[in-house]
Structures are given as structure tokens and as C-alpha cells.
């Protein structure tokens, strides 16, 4: 108990003495962990979006004109089924009513979106899955040129080019993001280490006397170690607050206004991030102090 109080007192008085450096160290820890948090969330959003889209790889949507007849529709289906590249069990016909229902279930929060409509604007469509997703483009082209389809469809859409772009962005974002985090973490460790070096230097007389009268090595080291860890933890708390602020004031409105992108964030991830960031801060602080102690305090 006595010892604990001693360590706390020493830590606080030392932090007070080199406020400017400590603030700088805390700020850098906060920036690096804050970016870590945002990168993790960003990666999550991107990968969720890609996953949502990936289930559509190999998918061709053929939107039909409203005025086609039942016979024409059956003929089109026969043409599709005759193609060897197509997964025959997964050919789906969505009527106009099906499309509307699907739209409603995807936007349950915005009933006004469809209540305003006097008639159903959504087209009927075929959803065709190719056995090999790479064949999507080829199959779509051939369908578009087939006589049975001429003048009977609005549009044939394949999803893959968009997904490819998205995956590219995702890979780059992940690598660059984590690289930035690692570089900043190293910088934070060094900066914490500098503050501890200054603290050691400021207390060199005390340290000399402590050694002289037989204070144990850890008794001498602890206040410096806790000082570093407190700097790290302070930075971590700022980072956590930043992540929540971004989530609530930036992400939530963004998601609303870009609802058509169907971006999602795994909310539970946020709660995993809190202890991870806190622990990261403490580790950065401890490691920074450790480096300083190794280099500047031979006990």
C-alpha cells in the first residue's frame, strides 16, 4: 500500500514536471491508436460491402420491359436455360411485385420511399447465375444479342467490374492503413521513451541515492514504467473517444445519406476495439519506458 502510494506520487509529480513532452507523447499515442481504430472500422465496412456484393458475383440481372407478354417471357427463359454456362437450378424470375417487396424489405426504415409511389416503378427481371463467375460478361453479351431478347429488355447488368474496383480499394486501404499505424506506433514508442529519458535525467540524483541506500532495481524502475503506461493509456482514451465521435457524427449520417450503397459496420467490433486500443496504449507506454530504462538506467 505504502509502495503503491509512493509509485503513484512519483509518477504524477514527474508527469507534472515535464508537461509539454508528456502532452506531445500522449497526442502521438492518441493519433496512432485513433487511426488504428478508424482503419479497423474502415476495413470492416469495406469488407462487409464487398461481401454483400460478392454474393452477386457471377450474377446477371436482365431487367425486362413492362409490356412483354407471358409467351415472350417463357421463350426468354428457354433461351437462358439452353446456355451451358448458366446454373440452371438458380434461374430466378422476379415479377414487378417481387421486386417491390424486396425493395421494401431492404429499406424498412424509410416507408415514405414507397408510400409516395402511385404505381410500381420497378421492372420484372431474370436473375441468372453463371457456373463460372468469369463468364458473366460473355453470357451477358450473348443474351443481349439473342433474337428472343431483342427489344424486350431495358438493361442487362453484371456486378463484377464494380466489385473488382472495390476489392482493389480494400486491399490498398488495408495495407496503407496498417502500415501507417505501425509507423505511428513506432514513433509513439520513441516519443514516450524520450519523455522517460528526460524524467530519468531530471531525477538522476535521486536515482544515485536510491542505489546507494539499496533500493531494489524494480523499486527504482516502477515509477518510470507507470509514467510511460499512463501516457499510453491517456492517449488510448483520447483515441477511443475519437473513434466514437467519428462513428456517431460522421459514420451514422454518412450511412443514412448513402443508403443505396448498403454499407454496414459490425457494431460489436466497436466494443472489441475499446479494450484493444486501451491495451495498445498501455503496451506502447510500457515499451517506450522499457526502451528508455534499458538505455539510460543501469541499476
Amino acid at each position, binding site marked *: 500500500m*505504502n*509502495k503503491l502510494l*509512493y509509485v503513484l506520487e512519483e509518477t504524477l509529480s514527474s508527469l507534472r514536471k515535464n508537461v509539454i513532452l508528456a502532452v506531445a507523447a500522449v497526442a502521438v499515442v492518441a493519433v496512432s491508436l485513433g487511426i488504428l481504430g478508424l482503419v479497423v472500422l474502415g476495413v470492416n465496412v469495406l469488407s462487409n460491402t464487398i461481401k454483400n456484393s460478392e454474393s452477386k458475383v457471377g450474377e446477371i440481372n436482365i431487367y425486362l420491359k413492362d409490356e412483354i407478354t407471358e409467351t415472350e417471357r417463357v421463350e426468354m427463359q428457354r433461351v437462358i436455360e439452353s446456355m451451358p454456362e448458366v446454373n440452371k437450378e438458380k434461374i430466378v424470375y422476379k415479377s414487378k411485385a417481387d421486386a417491390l417487396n424486396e425493395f421494401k424489405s431492404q429499406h424498412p426504415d424509410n416507408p415514405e420511399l414507397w408510400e409516395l409511389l402511385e404505381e410500381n416503378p420497378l421492372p420484372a427481371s431474370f436473375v441468372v447465375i453463371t457456373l463460372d463467375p468469369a463468364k458473366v460478361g460473355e453470357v451477358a453479351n450473348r443474351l443481349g444479342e439473342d433474337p428472343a431478347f431483342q427489344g424486350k429488355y431495358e438493361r442487362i447488368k453484371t456486378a463484377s467490374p464494380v466489385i473488382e474496383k472495390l476489392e482493389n480499394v480494400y486491399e490498398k486501404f488495408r495495407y496503407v492503413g496498417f502500415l501507417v499505424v505501425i509507423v505511428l506506433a513506432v514513433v509513439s514508442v520513441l516519443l514516450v521513451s524520450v519523455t522517460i529519458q528526460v524524467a530519468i535525467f531530471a531525477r538522476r*540524483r*535521486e536515482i*544515485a*541515492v*536510491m*542505489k*546507494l*541506500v*539499496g*533500493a*531494489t*532495481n524494480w*523499486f*527504482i524502475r516502477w515509477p518510470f514504467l507507470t509514467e510511460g503506461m499512463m501516457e499510453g493509456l491517456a492517449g488510448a482514451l483520447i483515441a477511443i473517444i475519437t473513434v466514437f465521435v467519428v462513428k456517431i457524427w460522421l459514420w451514422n449520417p454518412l450511412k443514412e445519406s448513402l443508403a443505396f450503397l448498403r454499407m454496414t459496420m459490425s457494431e460489436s467490433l466497436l466494443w472489441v476495439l475499446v479494450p484493444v486500443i486501451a491495451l495498445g496504449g498501455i503496451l506502447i507506454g510500457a515499451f517506450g519506458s522499457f526502451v528508455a530504462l534499458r538505455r539510460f538506467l543501469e541499476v
Partner: protein
Amino acid sequence: MIRLRRVTKIYKGNIYALEDVTVDIEKGEFVFLVGPSGSGKSTFIKLLIKEEEPTSGQIYIADNNIGELRSWKVPYLRRKIGCVFQDFRLLPHKTVFQNVAFAMEVTGKSRQLIEQQVPEVLKLVGLGHKLDAFPDELSGGEQQRVSIARAFINRPPILLADEPTGNVDPSLAAGIVKLLEKINSVGTTVIMATHDREIVNTFRKRVIALENGRVIRDQDRGVYGYE
């Protein structure tokens, strides 16, 4: 209590600080370690508290070979050896009381014990009335008394003093040695390195004389040197 066996210390650059020194010091002795500057007195003391390692030879303290001591045990060795230096090494921002209490705090003594023992020991060294003074408000002699109180506060069986009268007014030097004598009288082994001829000749203790790192004389109730 303290045994040196063929101890040699060579510093970088082939400087012999101590050469083939063999000495026995018994429990409760008072020893003057004499010799001119650079004769190896300070090295002798640094070796005993393991601030330096001998290049060769063994040092035993209370029958333990301190050369074999693991580094984490060194602090416990130092708790058994009080140290006093020419430059006092007091902490300028702490009061007399806090300076002495510091030696108890960092070795984990309770607040209650500190409150009780620090004034006692400061009274013993004659500073019972200056508990709240800061070091720069004291004379050299008084500062040295504070440092002796700090060295003695944890009742070590051995007290080492490296030129303790070096920065003290000559008229007050004898008082410092008398204080060390008082500490010696309760059973503490005291080793005092000095080149103060008058002090050595006045107090007539065992004298170990060093010259160029060698023991040239070891004499009970000795004087500083033959002339």
C-alpha cells in the same frame, strides 16, 4: 567481516587502481584507509559496494563472496553497508528530515517507523533542531552529519566513509570523526578513507596505508606515516 583476497583492479587504459590487495577487517573495527590522491582508496570503497568489479581476486563480506552475487541481490548488499562521501550527495529539494527518511522509504519501511526513527538519528548526529532545514541552509559539517544520519538510519553493520571531512571546515572535522567513532562504539564496522594526517594521528586507529594501489602498511593504533 570484510576480507579481500589478492584483489586487483585495472581500469581502462591499463591503469592499476589496486594491485594484489589482501586485507582482513573484523566486525566492530574502526579503520583509517590512508594514502595520497590516486592511491586507490576510492576504488577500495567502490569495490565493497559493488559499484566496480575487481579485475581479479575475491571480496568476502560476512563470508559471502560478493563477486558471485546476482545483480538483483546487490541492493540487499548495499542495505548492509552505509556510505558517506566527500560531496555529501544530499537531495537539494528535500529537507533534512526528508533526506534521511528517503533511505527508509526506498527500502520499504513504514511511515510510522520513519516518523519515529528519523528524528532519533538526527538527534544522535546533533541536528535534532534542524529537521526542516534544506541542505543549502546548512554548513558543510552539518550537511555531512545529515549524510551520516542517512547512511546509519537503517543500522547497517558496515559504514564506509570516503573522505568525509574533505569538504568540512577543519575545525569541525574532528567532530565528524567523533560521530563516526560513536557509531563504531555500538558495533558498526567503520572504514574511513582519508588523507587528513592530523585526524589520523589524533584518533590512533588501525591504519591501512595505500600507495599506487598497494598496501604498504597495516598497523594497529597507527599514525598517518613515518617521518
